[in-house]
């Protein structure tokens, strides 16, 4: 299990390859990459605040929970903080498993929990000013799926 919280950019493709490399017995690798989305072209910057210390703990707890629920060979979580430009990768998760259902479900589960249970807060900076991104009820409701 690999959990990284960092300000630095990362290369999703290189991370996927190094995550998948040298494994035997796996049949499926699923990755999710979250990207700073600019809906209307007005986003200048995304600022991501986090709670150092708790962040790694919370993510590790979520990843361990996934490893308990599904037969996984490994889990990778990378999450950035700080200032990100539109189009930049914010975070990624990857799961490796013998079977595709476990890899898909675990990645989906990890994303739902990272959204609502890992201490990150997003703020959007536009020409009009700054605004904190509000949590969506749908994100909290998504946890009931599991």
């Amino acid at each position, binding site marked *: 299990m690999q959990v990284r919280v960092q300000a630095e950019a990362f290369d999703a493709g290189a991370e996927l390859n190094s995550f998948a490399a040298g494994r035997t017995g796996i049949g499926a690798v699923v990755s999710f990459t*979250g990207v700073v989305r600019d809906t209307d072209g007005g986003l200048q910057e995304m600022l991501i*605040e*986090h*709670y150092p*210390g*708790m962040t790694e*703990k*919370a993510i590790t707890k979520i990843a361990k929970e996934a490893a308990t629920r599904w037969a996984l060979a490994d889990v990778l979580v990378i*999450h950035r903080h700080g200032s990100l430009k539109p189009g930049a990768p*914010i*975070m990624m998760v990857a799961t490796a498993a013998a079977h595709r259902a476990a890899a898909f479900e675990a990645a989906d589960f990890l*994303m739902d929990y*990272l*959204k*609502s*249970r*890992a*201490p*990150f*807060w*997003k*703020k959007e900076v536009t020409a009009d000013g700054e605004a*904190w*991104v*509000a*949590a969506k009820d749908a994100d*909290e409701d998504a946890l009931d799926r599991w």
Partner: protein
Amino acid sequence: MNVVYFAWVRERIGLPQEVVETEAVTVNDLVAELVAREERYAAAFADTTALRVALDQELSDFDALLAGVKEVAFFPPMTGG
């Protein structure tokens, strides 16, 4: 006790963390003490249903006891991922 704030809670209160001397038994008691201090705390804690609390870096709730806790964190619902 170390009290830390994140996101708009931090902005409303105007500082990221502070050391608070308190005899508060629960998180709610601590919130009441802070709210009584100054308007900026009252503004931050106006609606605790819109807030989350962590005790020693574990998510908790506002009824929780503070005995033995070294760090309390207040923040809005998380928006990671």
